């Protein structure tokens, strides 16, 4: 039986389940049947053949999560783990035994429970909101498969004392695994949260992680978000982060992609209030046959917002990179300032980059600009270093490292920055061998 048929069967079963999430699942299932998997002609999937992932026999994740132990988790731990709030997903299902919430200001519950809590209205309004922006079968697949998801809220006027670490672990020791972690995160008025997220595949089978995280940031809240993607070379993922700024708020997002088979990131920022301030940074540094695709949407709905987007890429071996940055400025969003920049360096003849920075502007009193470059290392720079006795490989590695620095500097917590910096340095040293 093909993967798609299996998935459909499982989703039908889920849709028939009469729980609080049933209406959401059913609507998404309808959408999935309508869209199907993205065909190569799908404009948003033009350069990323995600359909191929489903040619594998992918296993529908079991409900049990005890196959993965704290010991298995160790190789993926990020610095500061001991002090952090930890959320672990095993094959897309929340693993409470491995997770811990230390901050009193954070409330954590299953999505099903949230539907019965005082947050029901908030959850109903935001769960699946990303589907309004991502009209394709992949997003619908996640929503139609809602299971083992988590709702988190940071209480009003509180800074979470500890950062939140999210580990998306896939157990591919026996079979090729389909993992679909789902989080709905809420930052109440004047709340603050620092969040780090990473992905790990255990075992040598292939895995596909279809993650959706929806975030609601209310008035005066501050959200810092770091995504570190350094999964195995046989692990693919579509990672969607959909952020709604419903009040004047601050968002700072950094995405670091270092490894994976097919890595697709959808980062959406919907600015629904005046005076929102958002920053999105990304660094992708790929090797082998990795494919990295960063799709971002900045939707300026209300006036006086400012967004800043800066993505950099270093493409080695036969890796392929895709960048598509959309900026929408709606008719009422006067006085918007939106900037976007994408810079790429190709360090191998087999690497390629496709980029499409896209502006759609319906208001006149705005300042919007985008720029993108694709090039190679500056020969004068290499010559300068070599003339001072620095070997060729080291010189190149130095220059690339300084190229990456612009983004690395945006990682505010020092331990994490040092950790990522080390990963990048190792990578660049490898690339230059």
């Amino acid at each position, binding site marked *: 039986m093909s993967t798609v048929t299996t998935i459909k069967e499982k989703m039908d079963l889920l849709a028939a389940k009469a729980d609080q999430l049933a209406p959401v699942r059913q609507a998404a299932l309808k959408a999935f049947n309508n869209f199907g998997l993205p065909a190569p002609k799908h*404009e948003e999937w033009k350069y990323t053949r995600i359909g191929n992932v489903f040619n594998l026999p992918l296993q529908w994740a079991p409900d049990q999560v005890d196959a993965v132990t704290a010991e298995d988790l160790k190789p993926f731990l990020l610095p500061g783990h001991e002090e952090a709030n930890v959320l672990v997903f095993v094959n897309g299902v929340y693993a409470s035994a491995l997770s811990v919430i230390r901050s009193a200001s954070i409330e954590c519950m299953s999505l099903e429970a949230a539907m019965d809590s005082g947050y029901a209205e908030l959850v109903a309004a935001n769960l699946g909101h990303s589907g309004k922006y991502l009209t394709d079968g992949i997003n619908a697949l996640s929503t139609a498969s809602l299971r083992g998801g988590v709702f988190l809220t940071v209480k009003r006027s509180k800074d979470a004392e500890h950062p939140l670490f999210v580990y998306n672990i896939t157990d591919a020791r026996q079979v090729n695994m389909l993992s679909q972690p789902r989080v709905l995160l809420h930052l109440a008025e004047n709340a603050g949260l620092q969040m780090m997220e990473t992905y790990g595949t255990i075992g040598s089978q292939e895995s596909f992680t279809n993650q959706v995280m929806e975030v609601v940031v209310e008035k005066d809240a501050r959200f810092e978000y770091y995504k570190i993607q350094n999964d195995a070379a046989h692990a693919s993922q579509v990672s969607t982060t959909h952020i709604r700024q419903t009040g004047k708020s601050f968002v700072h997002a950094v995405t670091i992609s270092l490894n994976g088979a097919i890595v697709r990131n959808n980062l959406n920022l919907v600015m629904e209030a005046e005076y929102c301030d958002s920053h999105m940074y990304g660094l992708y540094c790929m090797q082998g046959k990795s494919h990295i695709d960063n799709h971002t949407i900045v939707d300026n709905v209300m006036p006086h917002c400012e967004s800043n987007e800066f993505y950099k890429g270093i493409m080695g071996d036969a890796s392929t990179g895709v960048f598509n940055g959309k900026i929408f400025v709606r*008719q009422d969003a*006067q006085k918007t300032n939106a900037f976007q920049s994408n810079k*790429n360096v*190709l*360090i*191998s*003849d087999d*690497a*390629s*980059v*496709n*980029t*499409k*920075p*896209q*502006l*759609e*502007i*319906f*208001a*006149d*009193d*705005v*300042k*919007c*600009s*985008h*720029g*993108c*470059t*694709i*090039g*190679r290392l500056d020969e004068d720079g290499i010559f300068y270093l070599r003339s001072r006795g620095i070997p060729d490989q080291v010189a190149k590695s130095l220059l690339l490292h300084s190229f990456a620095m612009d983004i690395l500097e945006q990682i505010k917590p020092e331990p994490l920055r040092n950790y990522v910096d080390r990963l990048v340095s190792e990578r660049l040293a490898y690339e230059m061998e």
Partner: protein
Amino acid sequence: MNDGLSTIEKTIASDYKYGFTSDLEAESAPKGLNEDIIRFISAKKNEPGWLLEWRLKAYRHWLTMTEPNWANVNYPKVDFQDVIYYSAPKQRVKPNSLDEVDPELLRTFEKLGISMAEQKRLTGVAVDAVIDSVSVGTSFKEELAELGIIFCSMSEAVQEHPELIKKYLGSVVPMTDNFYSALNSAVFTDGSFCYIPKGVRCPMELSTYFRINAENTGQFERTLIVADESSYVSYLEGCTAPMRDENQLHAAVVELIALDHAEIKYSTVQNWYPGDKDGKGGIYNFVTKRGICQGAHSKISWTQVETGSAVTWKYPSCILKGDYSVGEFYSVAVTNHHQQADTGTKMIHLGKNTRSRIVSKGISAGVSQNSYRGLVSVSKNAANARNFSQCDSLLLGDRCGAHTFPYIEVKNSSAQVEHEATTSKIGEDQIFYCNQRGIDTETAVALIVNGFAKEVMNQLPMEFAVEAQKLLAITLEGSVG
């Protein structure tokens, strides 16, 4: 900014200045499209069998295609059976001089301010004027013939230079390329053909004026320019169409071929009827323009000033096949009222050390939508390719839109590709700066818009730049001088 607003109001209120109809008796084919119509067109034009076959093949392919809908434009679908595919002015004998040309026709040109007689005398431009699909007057032909330059209508070229037509027609834009090029290949009625022999530098700017005249005739022009080794030609295309209520379809195909060391400079000023201020009427301009730099060190340069048409769908492109070849694209697109423009270019880098440059300026006013859509592609073997793209948008009014869709695909590590785009409106401080120096708001807007478009206007040949500025002024009347 009250003044500024009233300026825009005035802009929106301005009417199309070139809307008039000349009463020329036309001989037309019945409405609709089928193989018989194509045979009729082919027979009317006394074409050889292979061309008829080619047309029919294109038509059969067209039947299998569907209208593209990816462009950022909205318009009621065209009923292809409700179009007259052939309409010739009823003037059977070819004129030897301008005196023999229908005086009504000459007056049409005069209203456009491009009186042929004056142009001939003052500017030395050779004009091959096309009204409703048939070439009616060709000037300076002998002078060009002395240099071996062939510049004639497509129908004439089919009769007199079949070997060149057979070799190059459809070689850059295959008839199967897209929906509109297939349609054009099936039903094209006339157009211009130009051949510059080896080592010849064309001493004057070649020019064609297209005008859509009879009611409900789609205009399907076919232009083919071949520049042989080490030759140079500058070609001007200008278009205006009279006022009509029903939407008219225009689907032209332009092919350029530059061999070793050759250079082609192609300039367009397009000012077709954009529809009235309520978005009624106007021309649909679905044009396929493509040039190939076939030889080493060849160069193709597109310059366009797009002020007209209700809907524009146009991407003049360069295939940079020869090593060291250069492609350029300079564009000013102005949209007002309900106009929609989706325009840009494709630069396909195939050869080594190829370079391209894109400068696109979009100006939107009223409730119009203006999109830049471009592709820069560097293939695996295109070592040391270099591209620079710049697309800027200027918004006049708070209900118009400016969009940018640049696609950049690079498969070679030695490539250097840069793209930048900005969107802004005219700053209040800029206006204030001018006001402060005694320049009224209207003149200030004119100054700023002109400055914004200068980089592209500078690329136009002198004779054309004057007209282009006039057109810019008409389109944005009240805003510009």
